[in-house]
């Protein structure tokens, strides 16, 4: 982008004036889109309903109404709650999402930061949100919340590993942990000597993709892994005592991280900002790259919400069993297979 405009602003200008606002928007906009498109509309259509129709044409202003409403709702701190932790928890959750977005490349030059250990950083930061959930659950001094928080922690230790191990396959194939590098290696890759569509890792790493998506579903606490919220069991789990703006923050956080994780999956397995047919070094990607990435992200996010509204919920012990007895061995096998193929071929 910057090179098109033939500008070369200083680092602080780049960061403060361009990157940060865009980055913040990159979290909030997808979150809003996902809430409106999927939570309100797609789901309603799946359930043969219409969804919001009154606020604006086809209910498109519904989101603004939501924000306006939550802004003026009272913010209740229960007497027994640990006030400071209670207030800080939504910050932690949202912070994790905001930090995740920085490693996403949206074009050859359109990156926020191009970390060498990009995906590693992402994995590290993503688990911070669970700390926020644990804080929320504990600070509420509410039994449902506490159980929800404990379940969230249990879920973290079950799904962090498959998530990380699923990525290893991609890293082996790409030979780098840099997100930009992963995109380029997909764009420049070849399938048995044929480079027509590059080599999107979904083709070679479909086991990895499967494990990654299952783990993301659990990481995002979406059904069938929504035990920390588990509406029919724990009322709203760790969110039970949250009201007003702080609930809205959690709400944004939930859908924003769904968006960001979808975008990471798009980068890892679907070639990120790249589409076949155009030279990946072409500057045009700095303009259309973000749109392509957003499109891929929305498609993957649809998967997440499709599963969420279709599947029943696992029980906590079944989740652990699935993780330890199925997903972890499978992901180790995937690593081994990828490694062997990489070396042999």
């Amino acid at each position, binding site marked *: 982008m910057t090179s098109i405009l033939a500008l070369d602003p200083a680092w602080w200008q780049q960061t403060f004036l361009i990157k940060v606002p865009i980055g913040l928007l990159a979290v909030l906009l997808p979150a809003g889109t996902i809430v409106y498109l999927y939570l309100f509309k797609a789901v309603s259509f799946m359930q043969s309903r219409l969804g919001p129709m009154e606020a604006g044409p086809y209910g498109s202003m519904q989101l603004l109404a939501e924000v306006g409403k939550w802004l003026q709702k009272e913010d209740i701190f229960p007497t027994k709650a640990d006030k400071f932790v209670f207030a800080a928890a939504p910050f932690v959750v949202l912070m994790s999402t905001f930090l995740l977005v920085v490693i996403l490349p949206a074009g050859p030059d359109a990156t926020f930061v191009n970390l060498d250990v990009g995906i590693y950083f992402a994995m590290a930061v993503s688990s911070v949100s669970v700390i926020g959930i644990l804080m929320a659950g504990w600070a509420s001094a509410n039994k449902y919340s506490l159980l929800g928080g404990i379940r969230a922690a249990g879920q973290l230790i079950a799904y962090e590993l498959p998530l990380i191990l699923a990525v290893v396959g991609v890293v082996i194939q790409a030979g780098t942990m840099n997100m930009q590098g992963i995109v380029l290696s997909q764009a420049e890759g070849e399938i048995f000597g044929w480079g027509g569509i590059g080599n999107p890792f979904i083709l070679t790493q479909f086991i990895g993709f499967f494990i990654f998506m299952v783990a993301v579903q659990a990481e995002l606490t979406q059904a069938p892994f929504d035990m920390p919220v588990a509406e029919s069991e724990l009322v709203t789990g760790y969110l039970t005592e949250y009201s007003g703006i702080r609930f809205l*923050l959690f709400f944004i956080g939930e859908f924003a991280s769904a968006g960001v994780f979808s975008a990471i999956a798009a980068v890892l397995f679907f070639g990120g900002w790249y589409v076949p047919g155009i030279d990946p070094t072409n500057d045009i990607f700095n303009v259309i790259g973000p749109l392509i990435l957003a499109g891929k992200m929305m498609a993957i996010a649809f998967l997440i919400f499709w599963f969420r509204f279709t599947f029943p919920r696992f029980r906590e012990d079944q989740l652990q069993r699935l993780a330890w007895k199925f997903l972890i061995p499978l992901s180790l096998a995937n690593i081994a297979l990828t490694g062997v193929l990489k*070396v042999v071929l």
Partner: protein
Amino acid sequence: MSDFLRSYLTVAVFGVLACALVGAFVGLSALIRPTRKQGQKYLTYESGVDPIGTGWGQSNIRYYIFALLFVMFDVEAVFIFPWATRLEAYGYFGLVEMAIFIFILLLGLVYAWRKGVLKWV
């Protein structure tokens, strides 16, 4: 400043400004929202009855073995990542090395499995 540090500084700036944004939301809400004290509003919610005991009732966390296993495997992941990036360079040697490494870990998992610790409760 090196590029390396600079990129982490960017990350830090992101974090701070994100916090500021969230804070702005909360502040705006504090400006316009009402506050109405009401008898039982600040009572802990427990499905409409008096809360029994505190919300911090001690509860038996059953998955500390899982937590131990998790730590073990997570440390393993730290080693696997750098290996994964350089696999092409290491070739067969690296492959065999890592196979042994993963095999030992798998052995641990199988042992835990056989001992029946991979069971909730």
